[in-house]
């Protein structure tokens, strides 16, 4: 059934950290034919290899670095790498997507995938130099920030090597810890850093000088260049090079979904104090990922704060959502979070929850809205499990179960809310609820339809089950190719054409939709096996009881019955039962 497909290396690197050994094996081409690569392929492997019930911080969990057939080709926006494992934050599957250059280097090193199993006895890092694998001592690096770690390793090995590293947060097994690469790019969410930390793995260092073979390379390359010019680097996508994700600030503020003070309201009339125009003045350069065409990364220095970013999520959570308007503090928050190895979204959301708890007098965490310096300080305490950081490092779900304030603990399944207020985009409440790894905006991105292109009315539950599905299907297949989110105008036709040209095997437009659906289902199947069902697809009480007081969505609140109805609609579209469970035949059909 499966012909050999070009574009793939047909090689998986399996690393046994316990025994300090490495083996090569062929890629499961049958999985690849059904799931393509990156996100889909990673989840399929996880379903196959991770027994239900394992401890995400135990040695049976595995870390999967997964590329796709387009990785390491000039297909624009194809350079991202899937970083997946069972999540310590939620107990669900988790698939992160890291930019930078590590993804293409892993592919050029000759691998579709690298799987890390077991646990090192002592802190160490793994050095992958094409087909040479070495286990190195990291005792001197353990305890250092991610940035210092990367600097030391970069000095030792040179710019041909990509470095993925964790900071103190990952070492201390914080459920909000991330993995960094290229200093300022992350595999951010779900505690993926803690999976590395639990394996005593401080870093992964990768050099790849091999190549990727594709079908009919000269014609394929010429066609790719055509697509690059006609569909990617266009006036519509101009904002990505000029502004990066800061372009979302105005759209979200004026669209009614920019959160204010822990999602207690929306909109900040003073958003121009920290917006893209302000940040641009401090920009020193641009950077994109490998094989990018758009270059969203803004490298800037403001005061003593330095970072590539900050991205919309980080600006919002450390800005209006924290009651802060100082751009230097916002950038500093981003820098410190990156260095400590903390997800800005989850760590930020937890701190702003603590601000509300303190101001309401429910529990004194010693911080109020607007206290920017403290917010930055708290990142360090959380990463190091010190003082008030010990409680905050638990994340909003566990901390609110301990201290109260669950109604405004903005999370689903233990993963905190990204910076889009669902009362301004009702379908988003369901997107967050049903996302495969907890509240994530990168699965079904409702604001695209309900706000930015206004193709669906935002304040109704009508047809939203279908909308959530359509958006989820699109991202699921896109991230399995893997193509970055910013190529917003890509179509199933282009995806099928690129896959066909690169692999030399026919892929059709219809298959893109089928695979998207299958990827959603395999994520759900993994979680179902772990015991998840409808009662875990939740919405924070705030969203269904408190009406917004200001902004373009003033007065909006999502009635509980409307949320319940949208959720049921979605289950119907997926063919799942009333409890959100997949029938056995459906699970069997996707394996």
């Amino acid at each position, binding site marked *: 059934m499966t012909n050999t497909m070009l574009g793939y290396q047909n090689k998986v690197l399996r690393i046994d950290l316990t025994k300090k050994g490495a083996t090569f094996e062929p890629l499961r081409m049958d999985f690849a034919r059904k799931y393509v690569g990156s996100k889909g392929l990673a989840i399929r492997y996880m379903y196959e290899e991770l027994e239900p019930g394992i401890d995400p911080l135990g040695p049976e969990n595995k870390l999967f670095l997964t590329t796709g057939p387009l990785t390491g080709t000039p297909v624009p926006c194809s350079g991202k790498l899937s970083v997946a494992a069972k999540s310590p934050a939620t107990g669900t599957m988790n698939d992160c997507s890291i930019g930078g250059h590590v993804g293409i280097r892993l592919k050029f090193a000759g691998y579709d995938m690298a799987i890390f199993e077991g646990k090192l006895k002592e802190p160490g890092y793994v050095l992958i130099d094409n087909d040479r694998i070495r286990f190195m001592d990291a005792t001197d690096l353990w305890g250092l920030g991610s940035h210092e770690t990367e600097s030391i390793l970069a000095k030792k090995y040179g710019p041909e090597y990509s470095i993925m590293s964790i900071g103190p947060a990952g070492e201390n097994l914080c459920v909000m810890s991330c993995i960094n690469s290229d200093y300022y790019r992350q595999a951010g969410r779900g505690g993926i850093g803690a999976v590395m930390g639990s394996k005593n793995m401080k870093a992964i260092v990768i050099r790849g000088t091999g190549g990727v073979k594709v079908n009919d390379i000269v014609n394929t390359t010429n066609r790719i260049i055509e697509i690059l010019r006609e569909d990617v680097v266009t006036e*519509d996508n101009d904002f*990505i090079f000029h502004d990066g994700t800061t372009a*979302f600030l105005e759209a979200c503020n004026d*669209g*009614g979904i920019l959160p204010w003070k822990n999602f207690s309201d929306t909109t900040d009339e003073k958003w121009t104090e920290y917006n893209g125009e302000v940040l641009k003045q401090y920009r020193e350069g641009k950077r994109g990922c490998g094989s990018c065409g758009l270059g969203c990364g803004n490298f800037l220095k403001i005061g003593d704060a330095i970072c590539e970013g900050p991205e919309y999520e980080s600006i919002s959570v450390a800005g209006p959502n924290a009651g802060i308007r100082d751009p230097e503090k916002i950038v500093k928050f981003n820098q410190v979070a990156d260095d400590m190895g903390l997800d800005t979204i989850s760590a930020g959301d937890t701190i702003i929850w603590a601000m509300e708890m303190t101001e309401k007098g429910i529990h004194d965490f010693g911080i109020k809205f607007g206290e920017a310096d403290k917010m930055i300080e708290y990142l360090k305490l959380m990463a190091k499990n010190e003082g008030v950081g010990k409680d905050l490092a638990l994340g909003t779900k566990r901390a609110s179960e301990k201290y109260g304030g669950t109604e405004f603990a903005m999370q689903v399944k233990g993963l905190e809310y990204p910076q889009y207020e669902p009362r301004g985009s009702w379908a988003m409440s369901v997107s967050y609820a049903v996302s495969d790894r907890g509240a994530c905006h990168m699965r079904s991105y409702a604001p*695209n339809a309900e706000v930015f292109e206004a193709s669906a009315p935002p*304040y109704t539950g009508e047809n939203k089950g279908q909308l959530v599905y359509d958006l989820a299907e699109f991202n699921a297949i896109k991230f399995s190719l893997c193509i970055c989110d*910013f190529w917003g105008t890509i179509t199933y036709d282009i995806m099928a054409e690129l896959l066909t040209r690169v692999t030399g095997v026919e892929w059709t437009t219809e298959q893109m939709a089928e695979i998207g659906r299958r990827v959603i289902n395999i994520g759900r199947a993994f979680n179902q096996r772990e015991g998840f069902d409808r009662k875990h697809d939740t919405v924070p009480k705030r969203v269904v009881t408190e009406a917004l007081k200001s902004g373009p*969505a003033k007065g909006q609140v999502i009635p509980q019955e409307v949320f319940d109805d949208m959720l049921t609609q979605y289950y119907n579209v997926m063919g799942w039962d009333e409890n959100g469970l997949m029938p056995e035949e459906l699970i069997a059909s996707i394996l």
Partner: protein
Amino acid sequence: MEITITLRGTLKKLFGEDKERKVEVPEGCTCDEALQVAGINYREIPNFGFVAVNGMRVMIDDKLSPGDELKAWSRVSGG
């Protein structure tokens, strides 16, 4: 009735030097119709985004009242 139209993002250039324009429109006309009076047909602009009236999110076929401020944004897309 008279309403004011402001364009944001990459739509701004459609009004040239003007920050905003006041236009005379029929009573009860929609945002779509008002924009057309100002020479803008949103269907022909691939990156046309969303609209708001007096700071509140509305849809393109929602009706306007005298003195309303209609704003239109270009589209961003992403995640």
